[in-house]
């Protein structure tokens, strides 16, 4: 009789054994759950033990502080020379922008960061926010070029450092974006002429390294233009970036377009929406939402790739760091320089990549509604 009703009442929940919860269980389950994991854990700890002290001593313990004179650094190379960074900070960040006016690029950076941060919020994904961007860009041009509002004129050959990196990538992407939409639509068009031109463009550009495009822009562009016509170096780099970014973004958008079911096209056709109306109102809003994560990935790689303009002698962040290293007094501290700008690049890219991951999850959740 009793076996049938095995437990007349509900058994109490018991505490799990220590092999299931608690720090010991955690260590067992996460570090030593199999023999090879145990082996791995031990070798990793050994490796960290070997690397970290040396790194720490160079970075911190033996390092020379932010105000150490260069002679002190030269006397002892066993630690980092952080005074290099403090000495060259403004040059690395702003390049050859007139020293007394460097609050302007600083403000520019902050405006961009503010705009970018705001753009991350979906509540701002409204048409009027484009106007905010336009206003922001106008303000930034006024700040950087000057010549208005009592600001002295600063020509763009003097721009450099972080503002240049940001301007190249933001403006590049902003201009490339509409182009890439056209290219993506062109590639999926059923007009053979348009399709051929789009495919040829995308594949040609994607098939060659950006560096050779930049190289062409710097060395050969003068040959392509009518005699005597020259184009500003910044503009050339910017154009090369736009051409390149457009091809890559077009492919990301094409992925989004392909994900839109055929029924959406047919329904739009059935309502009598013309081609452009159909694209603008029905297809693109959906396709772009799908394409956002790969687009953000493209943004990240382009932000990093701005470092290639060094090839054509523009001082972006990497360029200013290298130029800072040519100061006779401060030659040789390239580890410190690279570490510093590497960190700046990393911070920007890391936030973008985290954001894209978050966005992807968020959009997927929204789509499953």
């Amino acid at each position: 009789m009793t076996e049938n009703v095995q437990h007349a009442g509900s058994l109490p929940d018991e505490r799990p054994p220590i092999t299931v919860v608690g720090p010991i269980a955690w260590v067992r389950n996460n570090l030593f759950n199999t023999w090879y994991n145990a082996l791995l854990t031990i070798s990793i700890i050994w490796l960290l033990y070997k690397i970290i002290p040396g790194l720490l001593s160079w970075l911190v313990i033996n390092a020379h502080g932010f105000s150490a004179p260069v002679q002190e650094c030269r006397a002892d190379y066993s630690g980092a020379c952080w005074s290099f960074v403090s000495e060259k900070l403004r040059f690395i960040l702003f390049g050859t922008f007139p020293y007394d006016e460097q609050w302007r690029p600083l403000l520019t950076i902050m405006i961009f960061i503010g705009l970018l941060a705001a753009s991350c919020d979906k509540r701002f994904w409204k048409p009027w926010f484009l106007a905010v961007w336009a206003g922001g860009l106008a303000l930034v041009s006024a700040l950087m070029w000057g010549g208005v509002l009592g600001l002295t004129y600063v020509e763009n050959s003097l721009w450099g450092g972080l503002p240049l990196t940001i301007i190249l990538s933001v403006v590049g992407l902003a201009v490339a974006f509409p182009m890439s939409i056209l290219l993506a639509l062109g590639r999926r068009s059923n007009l053979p002429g348009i399709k051929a031109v789009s495919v040829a463009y995308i594949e040609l550009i994607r098939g060659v390294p950006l560096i050779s495009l930049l190289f062409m822009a710097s060395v050969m562009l003068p040959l392509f233009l009518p005699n005597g016509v020259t184009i500003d170096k910044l503009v050339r780099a910017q154009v090369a970036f736009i051409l390149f970014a457009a091809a890559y973004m077009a492919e990301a958008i094409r992925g989004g377009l392909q994900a839109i079911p055929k029924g959406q096209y047919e329904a739009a056709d059935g309502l009598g929406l013309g081609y452009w109306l159909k694209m603008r109102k029905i297809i693109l809003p959906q396709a772009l939402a799908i394409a956002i994560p790969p687009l953000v990935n493209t943004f990240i790689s382009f932000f990093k790739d701005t470092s290639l303009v060094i090839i054509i002698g523009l001082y972006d962040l990497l360029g200013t760091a290298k130029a800072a290293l040519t100061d006779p007094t401060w030659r040789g501290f390239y580890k410190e320089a690279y570490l510093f700008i590497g960190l700046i690049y990393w911070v920007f890219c890391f936030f973008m990549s985290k954001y894209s991951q978050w966005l992807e999850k968020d959009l997927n959740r929204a789509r499953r509604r």
Partner: protein
Amino acid sequence: MATTTSAAAQRQTGTDAIIQCVGVHKWYGEFHVLKDINLSVRKGERIVVCGPSGSGKSTLIRCINRLEEHQRGQIIVDGIELTNNLKNIELVRREVGMVFQHFNLFPHLTVLENCTLAPIWVRRQPKAEAEATAMKYLERVQIASQANKFPGQLSGGQQQRVAIARSLCMSPKIMLFDEPTSALDPEMVKEVLDVMIGLAETGMTMLCVTHEMGFAKSVADRVIFMDRGEIVEQNTPDEFFTNPRSERTRLFLSQILSH
């Protein structure tokens, strides 16, 4: 009996025909989908198209608003011949509403926006007016309370009703339905059929591909039976169901009714 029908059909080819297909042929690559289709639909007529799967029903309907292109013959809709002329195609599409099997609502727009999009952008109506019209039709399909939801939040039957309302908002002269209930769960079929019957009662010209024989019986003026790309039989519903002329029709009906 048969003579009456053919006489009626004869009369329909007259000038008040709103859709006219003359010797229409269509190929998909090598495959001959539509073979010499002659069809004429009067204003206000309600036609049900049926036939086995793959017989070209969808293709025919889709040719009428040029979602597919035919290769031979003429299709004239509301006095406009369908050619490659983009302007004409857009004109025709404004007058022809289409309801798809899979609804094809725009998922990024609310129900109301789905309904006002085309009136605002194609008919250039003021937004307020378009919304008023939309609400009117949404009420007619008994879904006005959901106007601000997104399609993804509605059941299949509700979605299909929105799709019908969306077409109606363009005040089309003709409505085409391509198996509007076949993607729905059985319980939801009735909701949609009711709406369609209501629509039929207003005198709308309707061309409907469906296997809902109850619907055909109660509202159709004419039933068209297609097989292998041909129109095998056209008849009144009564005749069609009780006294089909062709052997094929009989076979088809026996299958569908036994189901």
